[in-house]
């Protein structure tokens, strides 16, 4: 039994709009074509060069390496659902692998869209620590191997949208009221003018679920890492303020308040009593419970925090924890059983 506490084993997770802070650095080795053009042999050579560096030692604690060869489809899917790997990495059929630390706060993907994607995640508002984690790994690698780097363009990446710092910093937010009121769309347009963007729970190209959104920087060139993070923090605070304002408005009117309270307790009621339930419906109901919990209602009776519930009901993690592959109908039944077991 693994006793190391995961980053998401935090009692306060899901009691606030801001769920987690995340940093990703995109890096490429100078002596290889970018991942898209690597043949299988080159990809294996590139990966083993980086593994050698990691074997010489990292100060960031114990890292486990998961190569594509020894990772099952379900394990990969579960890692994607936990944001340890990206959608691009999940779908990539070439040689690939990733390092992950015991608390799952740090993962390093090899042969993603770029050769190296270092990413770190911390619970709550802790982006500076997330940056330090990734930055330390980056420094160890770049002291031992030549990166594709240009004095003018910075860290060179496969897509010019990542060139420069190669930094994507993001905050995971729970924004049910902005979503339901339709204001989120306008907000997305406004923040794009500040070089920021809003993506789904699992990043680029993924659908939002359970009203979870990632707010991140779009611009990576011409601004320092410190300024990118500072701007992101300012924009995120504005979004949080807007969501808070909508939440406060509900409680001002007694009729609205009772309707709201009724809805969140009904959502909890369905979750506690259902016999089968799909992922999307579960996410919507858990989102209601998270919102109620956040607004001071004693609605969460689960043994674990709601964000962890949101992860554990995902198809990959559900199957991984049960240790078997299931059809959709079977998953829905097992999901309902799992939810009940958490009460």
């Amino acid at each position, binding site marked *: 039994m693994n006793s190391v506490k995961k980053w998401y084993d935090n009692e306060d997770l899901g009691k606030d709009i801001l769920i987690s802070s995340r940093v990703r650095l995109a890096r490429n080795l100078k002596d*290889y*074509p970018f991942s898209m053009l690597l043949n299988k042999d080159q990809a294996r050579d590139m990966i083993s060069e980086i593994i050698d560096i990691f074997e010489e030692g990292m100060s960031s604690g114990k890292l486990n390496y998961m190569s594509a060869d020894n990772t099952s489809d379900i394990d990969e899917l579960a890692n994607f659902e936990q944001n340890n790997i990206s959608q691009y990495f999940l779908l990539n059929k070439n040689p690939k692998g990733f390092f992950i630390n015991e608390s799952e706060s740090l993962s390093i993907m090899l042969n993603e869209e770029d050769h190296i994607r270092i990413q770190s995640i911390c619970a709550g508002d802790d982006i500076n620590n997330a940056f330090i984690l990734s930055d330390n790994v980056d420094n160890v690698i*770049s002291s031992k191997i030549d990166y594709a780097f*240009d004095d003018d363009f910075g860290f*060179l990446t496969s897509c*010019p949208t990542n060139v420069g710092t190669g930094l994507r910093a993001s905050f995971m937010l729970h924004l049910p009221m902005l979503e339901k009121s339709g204001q989120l769309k306008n907000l997305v*347009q406004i923040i794009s003018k500040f070089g920021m963007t809003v993506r789904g729970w699992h990043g680029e190209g993924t659908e939002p679920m359970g009203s979870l959104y990632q707010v991140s920087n779009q611009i990576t060139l011409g601004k320092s890492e410190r300024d990118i993070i500072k701007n992101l923090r300012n924009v995120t605070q504005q979004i949080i303020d807007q969501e808070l304002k909508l939440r406060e408005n509900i409680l001002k009117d007694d009729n609205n308040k009772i309707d709201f309270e009724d809805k969140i307790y009904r959502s909890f009621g369905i979750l506690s009593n259902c016999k089968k339930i799909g992922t999307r419906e579960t996410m919507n109901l858990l989102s209601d419970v998270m919102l109620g919990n956040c607004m001071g209602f004693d609605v969460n009776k689960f043994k674990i925090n709601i964000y962890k519930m949101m992860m554990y009901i995902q198809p990959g993690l559900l199957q991984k924890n049960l240790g078997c592959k299931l059809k959709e109908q079977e998953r829905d039944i097992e999901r309902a059983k799992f939810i009940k077991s958490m009460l």
Partner: protein
Amino acid sequence: MLCQNCNENQATVFVHRIINGQERELHLCEECAKQFGMQLSFDELFQGFLDGFLSHNHRQSFGSENLIKTRVCDKCGFSYDDFKNSGKLGCGECYKVFHDDLLLVLKNIQGSVKHIGKVPVKNIAKVSFENKIARLENDLRRAINEEKYEDAARIRDEIKKIREAGNLNE
């Protein structure tokens, strides 16, 4: 600017298209863009933008697209068309080969063409190594000019030692 299709919502998607040699620029809102079957992930939008953007700029600067199509990165074999179609680059060298196009693209998507921020640890070491050598060579010249030959010999040995150490590290 309002969407040119519904004339109601704010246009957020700008599409450049060259149709039968005629350039068309379309300003659409998110909803109408979806109706036109456009993918709205940033990478895909960027790819479409790049296609229109580069075609437009090259027509202006070269007059013919045939000239551009011949450019290929010697290191990875990635062609200008590959870049235009995929929105991606093949290797670090491509940034030099397609430098001028990238300046235009980066200015538009990133708002800047000059990196500010972190540099790789190895590059910091290289910068400080080169700075140290340059400083010592300056000292050496001054010592010779001032006819301090003993100092000059000592500095020369020091430069030699540092260079040798640098070569070993590489």
